[in-house]
């Protein structure tokens, strides 16, 4: 693997890791507050559709982004209603949201555009264009640093930078602010928060809302930055991988970033090296395809200890029955 290939693989890693990272951070906020969320997939999908749809209709990707976030927020609110207000089963609610998004996006897309559950292709201002860093072209030929700067760091859509900035931001919010302290507390012991005079319900809704915003950005990134429109089921299981990354990261922001980059990297490598020929024996494409998943299991079994979720996670907060 020569240097340029490495850069390209890493570049690909960043692109594939970004939606995972956004969804993973989304899950982090929600689960740190004690609300398990297997509906990340559905929220991303809904956001992908609405961002593409509104961007297509209005021609403005920023309006699209807002619409995507709004759609994801609506599903978040539903999850909150079910699991916070009505103390329902958070897993079931998440499953329902995934189904709901899978069905509704296509139904609405068909109703609006009649293009078989797709949105029209986005043109011009309907898409997030890559940002080129200053002097990126100029330094491209400088050995080593040049490609890193111009290929790997520069040239992604703004949402990628948002995603990676969200990591320190999440860390800062979680560990350096009052809100973060309360958020982490409510996921560990909601009664402690309640008796300290802070609203458990309010905090949890706030967390679920942040989760919605981040999932919204993730979905918009898929449909309006990586792609130029919505295709049904286009999240293709990324919400579940993000969830796996979250557990992998033991619910910590920086670890989440590394976990998502690892997943992205494994996928990028697998995409680039199908059909490796080992002196006559060709590794079947299926093996390469499954490799990211196999490696995840190996890493999990070999290097990552027990992951203990937030203690109050998954359980509705019930004071009296």
């Amino acid at each position, binding site marked *: 693997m020569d240097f*340029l*290939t490495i850069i*390209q693989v890493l570049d*690909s890693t960043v*692109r*594939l890791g970004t*939606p995972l990272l956004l969804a993973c951070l989304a899950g982090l906020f929600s689960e740190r507050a004690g609300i398990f969320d297997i509906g990340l997939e559905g929220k991303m999908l809904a956001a992908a559709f609405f961002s593409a749809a509104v961007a297509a209709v209005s021609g403005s990707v920023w309006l699209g982004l807002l619409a995507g976030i709004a759609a994801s927020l609506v599903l978040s609110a539903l999850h909150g209603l079910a699991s916070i207000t009505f103390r329902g089963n958070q897993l079931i609610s998440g499953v329902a949201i995934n189904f709901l998004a899978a069905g509704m996006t296509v139904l609405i897309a*068909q109703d609006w555009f009649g*293009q*078989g*559950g*797709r949105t029209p*292709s986005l043109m011009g201002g309907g898409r997030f264009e890559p940002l080129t860093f200053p002097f990126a072209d100029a330094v491209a030929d400088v050995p080593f640093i040049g490609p890193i700067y111009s290929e790997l760091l520069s040239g992604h859509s703004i949402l990628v930078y948002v995603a990676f900035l969200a990591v320190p931001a999440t860390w800062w919010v979680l560990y350096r602010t009052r809100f973060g302290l309360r958020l982490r507390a409510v996921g560990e012991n909601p009664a402690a928060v309640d008796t300290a005079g802070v609203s458990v319900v309010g905090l949890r809704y706030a967390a679920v809302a942040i989760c919605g915003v981040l999932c919204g950005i993730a979905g918009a990134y*898929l449909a309006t930055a*990586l*792609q*130029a*429109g919505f*295709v*049904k*089921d*286009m999240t*293709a*299981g990324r919400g579940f991988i993000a969830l796996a990354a979250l557990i992998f990261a033991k619910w910590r922001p920086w670890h989440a970033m590394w976990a998502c980059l690892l997943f992205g990297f494994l*996928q*990028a490598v697998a*995409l*680039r090296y*199908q*059909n490796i020929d080992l002196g006559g024996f*060709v590794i079947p*494409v*299926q093996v390469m*395809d*499954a490799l990211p998943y196999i490696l995840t299991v190996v890493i999990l079994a070999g290097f990552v200890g027990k992951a203990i979720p937030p203690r109050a996670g998954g359980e509705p907060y019930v004071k009296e029955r």
Partner: protein
Amino acid sequence: DPALIFDLGGKFDKSFNEAAFAGATKWAEETGGSFLEIELQSEAQREQALRRFAEAGANPVITMGFAMADPLSTVAPDYPDTKFVVIDVSWLDVPNLRQVAFAEHEGSYLVGMMAALASKSGTVGFVGGMDVPLIRHFGCGYAQGAKAVNPEINIVANMTGTTPAAWNDPVKGSELTKAQISQGADVIYAAAGGTGVGVLQTAADEGVLSIGVDSNQNHLHPGKVLTSMMKRVDVAVYDAMKAGTDVETGVFTLGLAENGVGYALDENNAELVTDDMKAAVDEARQQIIDGEISVVSYYENDTCPALSF
């Protein structure tokens, strides 16, 4: 009324189901007729849909895809008065069945040639959807065509995945495209359903050429899509519906000669296809029709002479 049974991909799969739907719609618009239709959701519905439509008096019952072969062979004999049509099947022995198969390898051969002719780098790409024999069949014809033009050409072939999600993952399609571009590919053929949307998009964004599949996809990115490998499922469905109950049964293989497959040329790619290219490809087309060139089908012995999967 005729009935149309779409395969699991759904009628808007950006691929042959959608083409079938287009053909049926055209028939309905022209004749003012109406047709029954179902988008299958599960394997068990294949037989169910056949029987239910046959019992409801639909005739002919048109079905899509090789996966219908097995259910048809058990159901069709039960309804001798109903005519059945199946696309992509050619090996059954059922009297009241019209089997329409396409010589996709021949069409792919032509676009493979065009890819090799248009390529400046000497590397062309192929992105498949799920790794199934049909897709290898496409890829195999493509590779043969490319090698016919340039025996030294480098063909990068990738499959998107091993689950049905592989048909609807444009993001992965994009990444594969970028990976192929970085390996030098400057023309990329996508036979991957919804995933292909991502391939064509990225090729257009990155300034390389792409080749569409099944229907004419040149218009998706005018001036950026070299051509499309046309598989005239729409025509096959239209014809069957038009013939109605009189539809002829038997096995029909639609190749280049029958215009069942071919490459698309329209105002969107006119500038991309030079006269030389067109001449070379048309000549090959005629040679294939005349039997002077034989394009090997992947199915013949599950291997491809020009590409290993």
